[in-house]
Structure formats: C-alpha cells, structure tokens
C-alpha cells in the first residue's frame, strides 16, 4: 500500500512540475496562433510600419516598440547611478544603526504594487514635469522617470546583495594596505561582484520593459514616433492595457496578440541573458 502511495506521490509532483513547462510552451503557442492573422496580413512590415490606425485596419508596431525602448532606456540611465549610490551607501557607508532599517524599507518598497507608482506619477509627478518642461506633462519623459523610480528599490537591493558577497577578508586586506573606501569599492568590491551587479541591472531592464501599470497612467498612448521627450507616446504594454478591451475586429485583436508575443520574446531574451550569462557565473564563483 505505502509503496503505491509512494509512487503516486512521486508521479504527482513530477507531473505538476512538468505542467509548468507545458504552460509556458502553451503561452507561446497561443500567442503565436492568435498572431497569425496579423502576421499574414502585414508580415515583417508589422515591426517597421509607423502607422497604427485601427479605423483603417492598419497596424504598425514601431511606435510602441520605439516607446518601450526609449522609456526603458531613460529609466535605466536614471536608475543605474542612483542604484549604485544606494547600494554603496547600504553596503559600505551607512552606520550599522541605519543599514538594516534603510535596507529593509527599500526592500519593502520593492514590494509595493506598480499601479501605485503609476498613480503617484499621475497625480504628483505629471504636474512637475508639465511646469518644468512644458507640454501636458503626460509624456515619454514622465514615463521614464516614474519607471526609474519603480525599478530603483529592486535594483538597489539586488546590487547591494551582490556587493555584500565580497568576502570581508579581501576588503580588510585592501584597507590594511592603506586603501580608501573608494579604492576598496572600485578595486575589490566592484570587480568581485561585477557579474552579479551587471546581471541585476539587466534583470531590472527585463522587468522594466514589460512593466505596464507604472507607465500606463503617464504615457498617454499616442502612436507617434517623436524625438521630443515631453510629448505623449506609447509602449507595447501601454498599448495592450489601453486597447485590448476596445479591439473590435479580428485583425485588431491579432495585432495586439502579436504585440504581446513580441514583448514576451524581448523580455524572455533579456531575462535569460541576465540569468544565464551573468548570474550563473556568480553561482559558480
């Protein structure tokens, strides 16, 4: 009897574990199948076409892809130096009394849902951008800034963890040779934790590019490519969030599914690079 239960239990757990792989494969298949209509209608032009006009049944993804890339790039440019600063502060500078409360509150802030960052951005940050840079305040720039603030806690916490993996004995040896804090950070901590730090940045990038709610509030969903950052724009997730419930034709739906597929492939690739190339190396070291 117990041998039977033993076998059943083993098979049950294995079955469920494999089901997870199947679900992921299923997600890709379903998105692909639903994109077929749009792929047949537009082919590769879908990603190079700049016009998104549902009333004319014309769908081009370039403005959304451009918006995703630019807003994420802006977010990274702003968040990376801040995250490094916070991480250095937390791992090397802060007095012991501050380290733990500040560190924990940053980790807790990483748990706050992104919809709340979006809401804060809409009510408190949009007016500031409007006053400072002109325009209506709902813009690519606002989206980039709100996104950078949203990924900052995650990035800072992971960077700090990577820095903390440096063995104390290495740091102490460097201090014993007369190194300043900065010498120790740049010559010991950063080289030692490099893979982990870069990995965490790329991971944050992968998350930021798929982030929906933090940017939906402040981007405006305007399908237009503009180099003026103070103008309203769109990104792949923003388009999906705004238009999925409005789509009325098969081609419209299919185009939105193709956008989802593109987004999934992009973030899957970025996250895989972070995990397999950078963070795995750290595991071996």
């Amino acid at each position: 009897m117990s041998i039977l239960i033993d076998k059943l239990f083993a098979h049950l757990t294995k079955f469920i574990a494999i089901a997870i792989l199947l679900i992921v494969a299923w997600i890709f298949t379903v998105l692909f199948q639903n994109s077929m209509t749009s792929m047949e209608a537009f082919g590769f032009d879908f990603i190079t076409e700049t016009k998104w006009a549902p009333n004319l049944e014309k769908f081009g993804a370039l403005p959304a892809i451009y918006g995703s890339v630019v807003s994420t790039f802006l977010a990274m440019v702003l968040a990376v130096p801040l995250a490094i600063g916070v991480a250095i502060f937390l791992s090397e500078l802060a007095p012991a009394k501050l380290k733990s409360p500040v560190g924990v509150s940053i980790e807790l802030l990483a748990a706050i849902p992104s919809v709340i960052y979006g809401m804060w951005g809409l009510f408190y940050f949009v007016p500031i951008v409007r006053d400072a840079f002109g325009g209506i305040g709902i813009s690519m720039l606002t989206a980039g800034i709100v996104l950078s603030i949203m990924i900052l806690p995650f990035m800072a916490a992971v960077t700090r963890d990577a820095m903390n993996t440096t063995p104390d004995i290495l740091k102490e040896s460097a201090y014993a040779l007369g190194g300043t804090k900065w010498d120790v950070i740049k010559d010991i901590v950063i080289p030692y934790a490099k893979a982990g730090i870069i990995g965490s940045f790329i991971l944050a990038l992968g998350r930021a590019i798929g982030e929906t709610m933090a940017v939906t509030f402040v981007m405006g969903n305007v399908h237009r490519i503009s180099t003026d950052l103070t103008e309203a724009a769109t990104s792949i997730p923003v388009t999906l969030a705004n238009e999925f419930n409005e789509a009325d034709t098969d081609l419209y739906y299919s185009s939105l599914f193709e956008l989802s597929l593109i987004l999934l492939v992009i973030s899957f690739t970025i996250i895989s690079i972070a995990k397999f190339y950078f963070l795995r190396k750290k595991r071996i070291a």
Partner: protein
Amino acid sequence: MTHTQKRIITNYIVMTLSTISALIGIGFLFWILGVLIFNGIDALSWTIFSQEGAPPGYDESGLKHALIGQLMIVGVATLFGVPFGILAGTYLSEYGQKSKLAETIRDISDIMMSAPSIVIGAFVYAIVVAPMGHFSGWAGSIALTIIMLPIILRTTDDMLQLVPSTLREAAFALGAPKYKVIIQVVYRGAKAGILTGVLLGVARVAGETAPLLFTSFNDNFLNTDMMEPMASLTVTMYNYATSPYEDWQRLGWAAAFILSMFILSLNIIGRIFLMRKRGK
C-alpha cells in the same frame, strides 16, 4: 598634491555623491509612501467598507465590491497556486534534484517570475475569456495562479533544500517510505520557509493589475459569482484614479492605501517568520 591626497579627495567626492544619490533615492521612495499614507488615511471612512460603488457625486460610495472581489480572485488563485506550487517545488528538491529536467524547470520558472504579467493576461484572454464570450472572476484567478506558481515553486525548492539531509537519512533508516519522509520530516523542517514563500507569493499577485484588466475586468457593484466580471482593488484603483471625478479619485487612494498595507503586512510577517527561523 601628493598621490595620497588625491586619493583621499577622490574618496571624499565619491562618498559624498553616493550619499547624495542614496538620499535622492530614499527621498523619492518615502515621498511615495508619504503620499500614499496621507491621501489614504484622509480618504478612509466606514462607508468604504460598507458601501458599493456609486456614480460620481454620491456620498454613499465605497469599495465593498472591490474588496470582496479582490479577496475572492486572490483567494481562489492562492487555493490553486499554493498546493500546486509546493508539490512542484517538492519534485525539484526531493526527486529531480540536479537532473536536467529539474534544472530546466528551475530556469524557466526564474524567467517566468520576471516575465511581463500583461502577457499572461492576454494568454488567459485567449484561452478563457474568448471561448466563454465574457470576462469572469475565474479568468482573473487563473491569470494570477499562473503568475504565482513559479514564485511558490522556487521558494519551496530553496527552503526544502535547506533541510539537512541527515534528517531525511534518519527517517529513511527507520524504514519510512519517501512520501512519509517528505510530508512528516522535510515539510515540517521547512514549515516557516514555505509559509514565507506563500505569503510573499500572495503579496506579489495581490498587487497585480495588468493581468486582470482583460480577464476579471471590473464591476461597479458587488458580485460574488465567479462566472461574471468582477471588481478588484487594483483595477478599480486604475479606473477611479484615471477618472476626472474627485470623489472617485479619493476612493482610488483609499484602495491604494488598503492594498499597500495588506501587501506590506504580508511581507513583514513573512520576514518575521524567516528571522525567527534564522534566530533559532
């Protein structure tokens, strides 16, 4: 200027810059927290818990519909996500171990944890909402279950691996079959860790908005039928905050406050469990 002086000055500059950026970063984050608490407490009142949604301008409007909807959608997702996640995690740690299959499942789950949640919403739309012909609470729960699974699976896997193998060997030596060893010895040893994983998993999906937008959709009134569109705190918050009506925006802040407090408490309780375990 000697070389040493140069190094000391550079050090001073870099440390100042890093402290400033830490202050900027932390300042922003506390600004958000302050806004949330200030607006949230300002908007809180009893009618929020006792009344359903109402047209703008009505005094008697609340979030009862969204609170109950949220509890149901997240509750059902937890009911499916937790046992399946724990069982799959058990496979990885106890049976699959370092096998190729187990490593692949680990890698894919790691990636899924960071994958865009709105895509899961699109997927569930295609497999549940479109065939049914309408939005439903079930669709929302299914989307959240898919998001929760990899989180529970990975934490369970990690936590079970922390249980010393000597415990397992002792139980095997007494003649216990493997399933009994796992259920009575390994699970018991990793109880606090698994619980933390569950709390963090629930906290994570409770804040998801994007995958609910086109699965459970929204409803301005109380609905407890999972087959029908259902309100959730997050989608309600999104709709109310983007509306032009001030009283709806206030309700949006109240929803944001309640949700954040719920998620923060789950996180804090989870941390306390883990700390206690480490303290032992």
